[in-house]
C-alpha cells in the first residue's frame, strides 16, 4: 500500500473474526488510519493511492468492485467513525436520515421510527428526544460521537471501523462509547484504532501492533499485552516507545 512513491504499509496480513473487537495500536504515523481507510475504500479519493493484495469483507473482495456504485454500496455496509465527531451541519434527525434517503423518501414514518430505535440503541434518545430538530452541532462531543455511531447503524452495517473514536472525548463519554461497543459487538464486527492502551485492553478481543507500516504482532489481546513475542511490542505496551 503506498501513496505515490511512499510506501505506507508492508505485508499486512490480518483477519478479523466476526462479532468481535479488533484493536489497532501503534505509534503515530505507522499507518493504522490508512489501513482502516483501505477497508471501505476511502483512500480511493487520493489519486496517488496504490494497493496490491486483497481485502475481503464477508468474503467479497473489496478491490474487485470496479464501479463507483459498488464502492458506494460497500461503504453503506461499513460504518466508519472518525476521530473528531462529525455530524453534518443539519438537525439531529436529518443527520440520522441522511444515509437513509432513498428509503426515507419511500416511507418517511418508518425511517423516523428506525432512527429513534437506533438512537435508543446508542443510549442517546432520552438525552436528545426534545432536541431532534436542533442542530447536531449543539450536542456535546460525546453525544455527537454516539450520534455518528447511530447514524452509521441506520444502514445494514455489519462492520464498524472506528478511528480513535474517543480521543476527543472526556472519560465519561469514553466509557459510554466503550459500553456501547461491547453491546454492538454481539451483532457487529468492530475494528478500532486507539492510542489508549487501557481501552484496547478493556474492550478488544484481538489486537494488532503496528510499527512503521508493518504488523509486528497480532493475536489475542491478552497475549499481545501480557506475553508479547516481540520486544518492540512489549516496550510499546509498557509505554517505553
Amino acid at each position, binding site marked *: 500500500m503506498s501513496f505515490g512513491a511512499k510506501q505506507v504499509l508492508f505485508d499486512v496480513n490480518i483477519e478479523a473474526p466476526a462479532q468481535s473487537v479488533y484493536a489497532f495500536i501503534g505509534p503515530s504515523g505507522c499507518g493504522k488510519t490508512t489501513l482502516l481507510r483501505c477497508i471501505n475504500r*476511502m483512500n480511493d479519493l487520493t489519486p496517488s493511492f496504490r494497493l496490491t493484495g486483497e481485502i475481503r469483507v464477508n468474503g467479497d473482495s473489496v478491490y474487485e468492485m470496479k464501479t463507483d456504485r459498488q464502492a458506494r454500496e460497500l461503504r453503506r455496509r461499513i460504518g466508519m467513525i472518525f476521530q473528531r465527531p462529525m455530524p*453534518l*451541519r443539519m438537525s439531529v434527525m436529518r443527520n440520522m436520515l441522511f*444515509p437513509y434517503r432513498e428509503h426515507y423518501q419511500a416511507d418517511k414514518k418508518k425511517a423516523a421510527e428506525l432512527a429513534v430505535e437506533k438512537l435508543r440503541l446508542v443510549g442517546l434518545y432520552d438525552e436528545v428526544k426534545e432536541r431532534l430538530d436542533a442542530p447536531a452541532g449543539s450536542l456535546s462531543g460525546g453525544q455527537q460521537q454516539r450520534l*455518528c455511531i447511530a447514524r452509521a447503524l441506520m444502514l445494514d452495517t455489519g462492520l464498524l471501523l472506528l478511528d480513535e473514536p474517543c480521543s476527543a472525548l472526556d472519560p465519561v463519554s469514553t466509557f459510554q462509547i466503550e459500553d456501547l461497543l461491547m453491546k454492538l459487538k454481539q451483532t457487529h464486527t468492530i475494528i478500532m484504532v486507539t492510542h489508549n492502551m487501557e481501552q484496547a485492553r478493556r474492550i478488544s478481543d484481538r489486537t494488532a501492533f503496528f510499527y512503521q507500516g508493518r504488523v509486528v504482532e497480532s493475536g489475542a489481546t491478552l497475549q499481545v499485552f501480557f506475553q508479547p513475542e516481540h520486544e518492540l511490542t512489549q516496550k510499546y505496551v509498557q509505554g517505553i516507545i
Partner: protein
Amino acid sequence: MPGKKNRRISAAVGPVYAWLTMAVVAAVCLLILLTVVMMGAGQISVDFLLREPAASAMDAGAGGISTPLAGTVLLTLVGIAAAFPVSLATSIYMTYYTRKGALDRGIETAIDILAGVPTVVIALFALAVFTNPAFTFLSTPVQNDGGVIQRAYGKSFLVAGVAMAVMILPFVTKSMTEALKRAPNSYLEGSLALGANKWETICRVAIPSARRGIVTGVILGMGRIMGDTAIVWLALGGTLRMTGRQPWYAPGNWLDTLRNTGSTLTSYIYYTSPAGEGNNLEAAFGASFVLIVIIVLLNAATAALGAIGDPERGEGGE
C-alpha cells in the same frame, strides 16, 4: 556606504511613512464620503425618490430618481440571475472535478484574464453579439422601411444584465471557489463514508457549509453591478426614463420593460453631472448618496445574514 546608521534611519522613517500614507488614504476616503453625504443627503425627499426624471436633465428640476433607482435594482437582479448558476457550476467544477490538466489551467487563465478586461470592452462585445437578429428576444427588433427585421436593437436591461454577468463572473466564481475549498474535507468524507455519492455530497454537505461564502460572492457581484457605468452607457442606453410600454411597472409590461432601455443611478449621475448635459450637481449628489446607502445596506445585510446562518452553529440543512 549604506552603513548601520542608514539602516537605523530607514527603520525610523518606515513606520512614519506607512502611518502617513494610511492617514492620507483614510482622509481621502472620508472626504469623499462626507462630501456625498453633505451634498446629497439634503436632496433626499419622498418626491426625489418617487418622481420620474424629467425628459431632459437640463431642466432646472431634472426630476426624481424613481426609474433610475428601479433600473439599478432590475439590472442587478438580471445580472445576478444570469451569473449565479454559471458561477456556482464553474466553482463546483473547479473545486471537485478538476484534474489540474491543461484544460483546467486554460479555464483558470481565461477567468483571470476576463477579470482584467475593461467593462467597456465587455459592453462592446455584448453589443456586437446581441445586435444579431437571432437575439431580438433580448432587446427589440429594428426594422427597415419595409418592416423587415434587420437587426436587434442590442440595448436593453436583458442585454446589459448579461454583460454585467460576464463582468462579475470571474469575481463571483473566485469567491465561491474559495468558499467551497474552505469547506472542511472531513465533512465531505463523513458523507462519502455513509455511501453518499459525490454529487449528493456536494449538494447536501459542501454547498450548505459554504453557504456564507457563496452569499458573500453574490453580494460582491451585486455591488459591482450597481457601480458600473460603462456597460450601462453602451448596452442599456442613453435615456433617463423607461422606454418600454407604460406604465413600465405593470406586471403585464415587465417583460417589455426588460427588453427595452432605461437608466440606472450611475447613468443618472452621469447625465446630471457637469460632465453630462445636466450641470445639475445637487441631483447628481442626491443620486450618489442613494447609491452609496444601498451599497452600505447591502454590506450590512451580508454581515447580518452571515451571523444568522453561521454554519459553525450547525444550523440549517439542505
